[in-house]
């Protein structure tokens, strides 16, 4: 090793040691305020830019802007109307319509009929149902981040988890629910964990970067599930759908239709608490975080980097697999191809927004679930394509990852950065 390279290594080790110290020390009190304020402002700013996108892709509004100088009021009013209809559809689609609530309660008081009430609560139930896979997948990506691993493969792992758990769900018969349900759920988690551990193993043994490997494994997982659903796991008939799972594998529901809210929500919260405990209260978690902060220092301290890469990828994959299992056992009760539609990819943004902390992830997942289920309504009512959500997410990550932009926009004072994890170390070792 040349002297220059050695010195460069020395320098980088110094900064990495500082990173370790930063990560393992508690954040200072003063920065807590910005730790909350920055994500809020990031989401707020993204919504404003999203509004601009909505306005400037609205053909009717654009036509009014052609004679802006003749009638500026008209154009502005139309812009406002366009934004208001989109975002109010978003709100009604995700939280609910206040008028509907009031009406439903008065119907309940007069006739005792709960149907309107269930209808009124439907949006919020949908938001919570959509949040559940986000919590699992967000925890998956966050746990990877804590170990310095960038798991872009959550989407594929969701598919693997769903495949495994739907298989247990429909093929195993005659078991009581308290055995069948956990069996199906954790088989999904374990299958996805093993799937993801391959990427961890490759990283640990050959230095192959997990980003490309997990992306490649995504495509392989999609093709695998296509093949299974068109062949071995196909139900009789034309469409590529698996058989329906046994009733004994259903996650319990609490309310009659159309409310789909199910026990998966509480499982997700429990798992989030478990992840918190594992990461911050156990030796395993300490090792994972040490490797994430500085693999060289961790190795020097006697921590096996290889083992932790594989373990963290396994756990990360298992969490993503739970998202898939949850969708199968709690919502769809069968598996159709392309069922996930992007939970895994969204969860990257979500984990960054939640600062890779389980509490942050749960809050961010609630936000994303709300946004997404509202966006479906926005698409049908206001004609705004659901892909606006991806744009908002990208903007949120930009503002979270480059807080300098938000500070500059809102003239915030610079405070000390806390706990930044670094993923980019070149493609080799």
């Amino acid at each position, binding site marked *: 090793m040349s002297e220059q390279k050695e010195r*460069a290594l020395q320098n980088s080790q110094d900064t990495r040691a500082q990173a370790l110290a930063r990560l393992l020390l508690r954040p200072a009190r003063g920065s807590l305020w910005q730790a909350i304020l920055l994500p809020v402002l990031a989401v707020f700013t993204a919504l404003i830019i999203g509004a601009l996108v909505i306005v400037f*892709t609205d053909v009717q509004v654009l036509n009014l802007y052609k004679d802006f100088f003749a009638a500026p009021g008209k154009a502005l009013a139309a812009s406002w109307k366009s934004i208001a209809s989109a975002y109010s559809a978003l709100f009604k689609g995700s939280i609910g319509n206040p008028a509907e609530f009031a009406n439903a309660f008065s119907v309940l008081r007069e006739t005792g009929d709960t149907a309107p009430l269930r209808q009124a609560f439907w949006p919020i139930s949908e938001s919570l149902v959509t949040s559940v896979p986000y919590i699992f997948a967000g925890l998956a990506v966050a746990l990877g981040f804590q170990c310095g691993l960038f798991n872009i493969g959550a989407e594929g792992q969701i598919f693997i988890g769903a495949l495994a758990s739907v298989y247990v769900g429909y093929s195993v018969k005659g078991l009581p629910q308290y055995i069948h349900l956990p069996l199906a759920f954790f088989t999904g988690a374990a299958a996805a964990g093993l799937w993801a551990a391959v990427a961890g193993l490759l990283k640990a043994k050959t230095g192959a970067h997990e980003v*490309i490997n997990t992306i490649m494994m995504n495509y*392989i997982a999609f093709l695998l599930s296509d093949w299974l659903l068109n062949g071995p796991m196909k139900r009789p008939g034309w469409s590529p759908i698996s058989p329906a799972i046994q009733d004994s594998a259903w996650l319990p529901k609490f309310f009659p239709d159309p409310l789909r809210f199910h026990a998966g929500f509480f499982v997700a919260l429990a798992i989030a608490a478990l992840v918190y405990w594992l990461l911050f209260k156990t030796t395993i978690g300490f090792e994972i975080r040490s490797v994430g902060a500085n693999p060289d220092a961790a190795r020097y301290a006697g921590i096996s980097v290889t083992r932790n890469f594989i373990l963290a990828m396994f756990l990360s994959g298992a969490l993503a697999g739970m998202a898939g299992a949850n969708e199968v056992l709690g919502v769809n009760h069968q598996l159709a191809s392309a069922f996930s539609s992007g939970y895994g990819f969204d969860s990257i943004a979500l984990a960054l927004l939640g600062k890779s902390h389980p509490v942050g992830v749960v809050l961010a997942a609630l936000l994303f679930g709300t946004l997404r289920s509202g966006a479906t309504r926005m698409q049908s009512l206001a004609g705004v394509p659901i*892909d606006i959500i991806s744009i908002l997410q990208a903007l949120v990550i930009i503002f979270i*990852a480059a807080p300098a932009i938000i500070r500059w926009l809102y003239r915030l004072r610079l405070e000390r950065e806390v706990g930044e994890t670094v993923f980019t170390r070149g493609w080799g070792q």
Partner: protein
Amino acid sequence: MAVAARNAELTIARRRHVGTGVFFLLVALLILAFFVRTTAPDLTTTFGLNPARLTTALKLPDLVLPSLPSLWFLTVVCAFLGGWQLAKGFRSTGWALGVVAFAFVAAFLIWAARGKSMNLVGMLSSSVLRSIPIALAAFCGILCERAAVINIAIEGMMLTGAFMAAWIGSITHSLWIGLLAAMLASGLLAAILAVLSIKFKVDQIVSGTVINIFATGLTSYLSAKFLQVYQNLNNPGIFKPIPLPLLSRIPLIGPVFFEHNIIVYITFLLLILIHVMLFYTRWGLRTRAVGEHPKAADTLGVNVFRTRYINVIMGGLVAGIGGAFFTIGSVGRFDEVMTAGKGFIGLAAMIFGKWTPLGAFGSSIIFGFADSLQTKLQILQVPIPSEFLLMAPYLVTMIVLAGVIGRAVPPAADGQPYEKQ
């Protein structure tokens, strides 16, 4: 420490040495078990050496091989190379590995087309076509990473390029303006990536992922809002193939390489241009210095930040051409998320090609071959589910990345933001 490291390296080298030998033998066994066993003795395999379409190239007779003897021959070749590697060992396993890989692919083709005929030239020609976006993505990666900026946003840049080429090309009725728009849009995304990673020092994987998400969202949004509603906005037409005079008349090589559209030729030109610029010009020397040791380059008066900005934006322009290939270079319309991971495969090609344009181009051809193989085999009705054949490029990428075929060393400063002191 140095001695221990050298010992460890030797152990790894020895292990890899034995591993390679065993791998060769396994390939021989594989050919024996799957191909030889299932082939009837009196079949022949016919490879067409002339393109199916009208061509200016000189005609060649078809290549007719007896299937079973050819397969036995290939088995013996692989077994011999494996035995030799275990007993004596090759000094450099590169060419032996090439031969074994070639033997396996040849055996597979002979087996797949046994008793039938397969147009080899057509397949190779489509391999070149399919390798073009991968090669352009790899070139983009090389331009960025030689200056130590990791760019995993190539996928998003190409997607945006594909969208803009289709959209602007349709509006202006000019493919060239479409191509230019694709380059500019992709270059703009590259500029954003550059600002995020160079100025704001955002983790480069994060900033790349952001751009991918943003590009996917924006193109799908605009496509749903406009292209799907107004079909005439998504009908740009395509660049027609132009046979190059003289070159296209060479048998075999002519139809494979020189009967394509202009974007393919632009790729060939870029290959030569980037190679020469990177290794024989002052700009190239500076770029490589910035990628390997930015502090040293800075001390000698090279503007590290400016070099990185220029390289990343140039990479974006190249990725834009790759994106345009998807729409105005092949199918003539934009579909959501149509790049399907080609940008990431391009990165793998870059790594496989050891950050050199020639190597990257060669590996892109391999990926393109794997891709076109799968369509050909579907036509031949090979009894393997098409999903598994479609997995091939992704599996090859992972195998390549795992360094089965030698270790690739990235530029030393790859991915690290530069702090001026």
